[in-house]
């Protein structure tokens, strides 16, 4: 008789499932399309030439920002169909018939998608970063901070998308998370200033802070602007906040999924 798999083993199995699904559905094609786009861009730049340090910095900023956006977008698309897809295709039931808790299943999905997202981030990031000549000064510590925060940002995106995918159709999940990704920071800023001057302003400001702020975890422009790295406390604070948001979304998703009638 074989012993029941432990939770980490089950998570690894689910995680592997995410990757097999990724290859089977040819999602890798989308990544290849983006890589092709970067390749075309690099070729065009090589033909036209960069010319001056300012343009090199501009290209670096553009490439890294695109990487940040594409990595989040691909992760969002991947995560948004994980559980609804398994429910539609009825592949979820045999999985849950195994000695596997729903909690483990969900965490496995989150780990798998986060790893996939980080791999996309690193692949596109390298293609964007390597070919651009570094003609101005950029801070290496800040680059490392940027990388770590992008990883946390992807993990947060996965957790919130998983949560939303349990309660809304895929299209709505993509639209809502897409808006939060692109405009979350602006919405928080604009919302926080809604009742400027009023006694309720503090409350409104507080409430808007509950939205996940992906733009605060994106330090690309700070990096290409040649600004100093974040202080230790600022960096730890950002890591801590994204970890709290991720943990909360994941715990809530587990709770919703536990109660969901399948």
């Amino acid at each position, binding site marked *: 008789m074989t012993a029941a798999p432990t939770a980490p083993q089950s998570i690894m199995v689910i995680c592997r499932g995410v990757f097999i699904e990724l290859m089977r559905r040819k999602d890798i094609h989308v990544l290849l399309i983006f890589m092709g786009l970067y390749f075309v861009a690099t070729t*065009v*730049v090589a033909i*036209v*030439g*960069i*010319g*001056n340090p*300012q*343009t090199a*910095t*501009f*290209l670096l*900023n*553009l490439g890294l*920002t695109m990487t940040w956006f594409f990595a989040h977008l691909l992760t969002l698309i991947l995560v948004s169909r994980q559980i609804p897809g398994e429910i539609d295709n009825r592949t979820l039931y045999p999985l849950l018939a195994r000695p596997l808790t729903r*909690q483990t299943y969900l965490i496995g999905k989150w780990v798998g998608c986060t790893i996939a997202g980080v791999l996309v981030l690193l692949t596109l990031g390298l293609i964007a970063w390597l070919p651009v000549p570094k003609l*101005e000064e950029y801070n290496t510590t800040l680059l490392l901070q940027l990388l770590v925060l992008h990883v946390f940002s992807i993990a947060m995106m996965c957790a919130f998308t998983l949560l939303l995918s349990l309660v809304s159709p895929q299209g709505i999940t993509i639209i809502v998370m897409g808006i939060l990704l692109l405009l979350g920071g*602006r919405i928080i*800023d*604009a919302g926080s200033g809604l009742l400027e001057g009023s006694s309720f302003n503090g409350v409104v*400001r*507080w409430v808007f*802070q*509950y939205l996940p*702020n992906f*733009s*605060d975890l*994106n*330090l690309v*422009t*700070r990096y*290409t*602007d*040649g*600004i100093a790295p*974040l202080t230790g406390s*600022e960096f730890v*604070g*950002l890591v*801590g*906040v994204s970890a*709290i*948001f991720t*943990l*909360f979304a*994941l*715990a*809530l998703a*587990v*709770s919703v999924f*536990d109660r969901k009638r399948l």
Partner: protein
Amino acid sequence: MKKSSPSSLILIAALVLYLASPVLTSRLEPNDYAGGRSRDSFDRSIRNSSAIAMLLGEVRMSASDLIFIKTERYLHEGIAYVPHLEREDLTPDLSENGEGEEDDHAGTPTLIPTTETDFRGVIGVLHRRVKPWRDPSAAHNHTEGTELLPWYRLMTIADPQYVRGYTIGSWWLKGIDPEKAIEFIKEGIENNPDAFQVYYMLGRIYFEQTRELDPLAEGLQIRELNELARDNFVTAARLGLQERPDDWTPPKTPEEFTEEWDEGREDDLRGAARLGVLLEQKYGDSERALELAREYLIELAPDGVLERRIDELAP
């Protein structure tokens, strides 16, 4: 009594942390910093005139770059020319004597090529008909910059450290509603208390307001406005001299200016110093005016205007 499961306990702990998180998030603003290459006017001008920028059309990542493109397009009725506008085109009468320069920039190429240089045949013909386009040899028709105001407003909301958004935006706004312009530039000062150019612009707006008034009937008001202008010019000159690199010497040609201290900054600093001294002389204390002129000249020499003031004021 029913026992709580570990996942419920984790959820409660996560919820408590999440509810308390604004304590941290409200203190974290990693992208709220002053300066930086993306906002620098010298850098911006170079990167937006590059071949890569032409290829990208209107795709830009920074607020400063986007407003640069919009300004070029809006002032030319939507026609996409190779970037060529200078600071003087954006703030037409921002020179010490208040007289603007007019230059039609005829000959600046358009991004859509002419029939003679276009390889695309019929596609090129359609492109020129569909988009706002005029032959580049024709004189440029500059429109009112006031339609750009929404862009400046939006950009300063998106990036409150974008100083030029405040200075140029308030300059356009001054022509329509000076009170609103003062309100806008004061918001710029609040968000950028160390940026000398916002004080200089506020001083200019007060100073310009005096021109609209009748010296005989509204003398008191003119005096008050000039005193306000003077205070802002003096503050601007003090902050500008602090910001200007210590070993900086004026280059011989505009092309030799660097990112560290560009032509626009130098002009604004000299403008603030000259007008600060002039208004102190007229509406304040002559001795203090002399003291200021000498202090400024140590850093800004050679400066004919300041030297003339010293000659006038010296006993």
